[in-house]
């Protein structure tokens, strides 16, 4: 049984009819759909166990705390972190990257250098722009080559003894490039720079192992990996988290407080001020268990096949252009494309008229759009429930678009 045959019955939303056609959802890169297991886990939590965590002595408070902390264990297992203290819950990838930038930012001085790449989502660019402006630091970007991969020779030249942070995406949300994280981290470590990896487009699609990647920070969102909105993960290497002052203050993150000072709580709570997203953590646990049951290697294999089918199929359509690495190169579960004579938003609207949901626009990566010489692209992204038949529908629809407007 193929993965889509196995999983489709688990996703209630796939029963939807959109504009007279069965929904074909190719926008999981923006936000994935949710299996029933996630929806039920969250509603069961609200119906039976909800209370605030950590401070409540009563039964429900204990249950909620246990469920919330079980999510941390699930994430630790899912990403191969060496301890649960390294798993910090945030509101999502953007929140996590912002938290890291604020926290590390305080330690930067005038002339210190931050290295990002031309592939970055605005979420891994703007926080560093703010930090650079605030601290008088210098922001540099690793350029991409014509095939959408990073120019690693240029990366080497950008690393100097002033480099304090290297922040880059694991998988491009636009062109699907998979960056060589371990190698880039190794080189950054050569100049004693901290490494921050945006894993939003990797965590839903491939096996992760923090001990192999060796980065200092790794950040992702639950809602792109079959889980709920409103919760994300900031993995931080323990030695680094131990060395940093908390970025944000509030309840939960302290041990003892006086009017003029406070003693910080232990890891990981030191970085989790306020009431956390508890039901969302429960949903994330269910999403992780769902993915683990399928097996991440099988997930990767399934989605890579769909990606290749889409890439090769689009490349055969006259007037269609695919951006990023060629089909021979492994890429994430994303294919960005253009149809000659049509604006990406019109492509998306015309496909929507046939029930096919793709994303269109700059994908929050305007510098990359500028580099590609386009205003935007149309983008199909894949998840476990997508099928080769759906890709065939997309290809037929795209082939018919040139005469549509």
């Amino acid at each position: 049984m193929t993965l889509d045959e196995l999983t489709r019955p688990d996703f209630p939303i796939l029963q939807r009819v959109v504009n007279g056609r069965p929904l074909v959802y190719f926008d999981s890169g923006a936000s994935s759909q949710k299996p029933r297991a996630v929806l039920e886990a969250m509603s069961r939590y609200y119906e039976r166990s909800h209370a605030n965590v950590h401070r409540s002595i009563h039964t429900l408070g204990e249950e909620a705390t246990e469920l919330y902390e079980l999510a941390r264990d699930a994430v630790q297992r899912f990403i191969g972190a060496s301890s649960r203290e390294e798993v910090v819950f945030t509101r999502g990838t953007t929140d996590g990257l912002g938290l890291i930038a604020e926290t590390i930012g305080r330690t930067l001085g005038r002339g210190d250098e931050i290295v990002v790449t031309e592939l970055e989502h605005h979420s891994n660019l703007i926080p560093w722009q703010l930090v650079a402006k605030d601290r008088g630091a210098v922001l540099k970007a690793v350029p991409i080559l014509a095939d959408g991969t990073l120019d690693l020779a240029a990366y080497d030249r950008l690393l100097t003894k002033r480099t304090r942070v290297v922040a880059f995406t694991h998988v491009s949300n636009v062109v699907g490039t998979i960056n060589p994280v371990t190698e880039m981290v190794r080189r950054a470590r050569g100049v004693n720079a901290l490494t921050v990896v945006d894993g939003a487009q990797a965590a839903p699609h491939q096996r992760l192992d923090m001990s192999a990647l060796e980065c200092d920070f790794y950040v992702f969102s639950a809602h792109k990996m079959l889980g709920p909105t409103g919760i994300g993960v900031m993995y931080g290497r323990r030695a680094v988290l131990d060395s940093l002052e908390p970025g944000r203050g509030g309840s939960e993150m302290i041990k003892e407080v006086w009017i003029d000072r406070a003693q910080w709580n232990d890891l990981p709570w030191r970085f989790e001020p306020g009431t956390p997203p508890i039901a969302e953590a429960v949903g994330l646990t269910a999403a992780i268990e769902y993915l683990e049951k399928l097996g991440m290697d099988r997930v990767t294999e399934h989605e890579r096949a769909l990606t290749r089918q889409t890439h090769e199929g689009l490349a055969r359509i006259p007037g269609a252009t695919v951006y990023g690495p060629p089909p021979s190169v492994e890429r994430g579960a994303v294919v960005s494309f253009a149809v000659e004579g049509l604006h990406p938003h019109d492509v998306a609207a015309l496909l929507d008229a046939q029930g096919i949901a793709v994303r269109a626009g700059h994908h929050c990566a305007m510098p990359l759009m500028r580099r590609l010489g386009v205003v935007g692209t149309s983008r199909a992204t894949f998840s476990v429930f997508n099928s080769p038949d759906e890709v065939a529908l997309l290809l037929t629809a795209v082939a018919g678009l040139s005469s549509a407007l």
Partner: protein
Amino acid sequence: MSGAGPSAPSGLYSDVIRDRWRRPRHRGDLPGANAVAEDVNPLCGDRVRMMLAVEPEGRIAEARFLGDSCAICTASADVVADLVAGRSRSEAAALDIADVLAVLQAEIRPTRMRCVTLPISVLAKALDWSPKR
């Protein structure tokens, strides 16, 4: 709905929009323009530049636009250029979205309304930008 293809009638893309997307009347540079503005739609990155040739007594002799934009935004810019030509500055400044929608004859969804309004807001900026008389 006999296997409706992509060219099936769609309320979003009216005949007016299709026509003005394929054959815009006012697209191109306007070298003598003395009121110019440009802006982007932050949602999609679309960019529109409106150029007006305003006569000394305040009549808009000609309007043209340039831009990277979708069919709806392009059609809107073309209609805006149509509607302001020959008008006074104050008449042009009074142009609003209803005037443009009345010409476009399309069912614009909320998510695409910014495509219609961008050229109108750029027109307002252009009228603001030129020397006041």
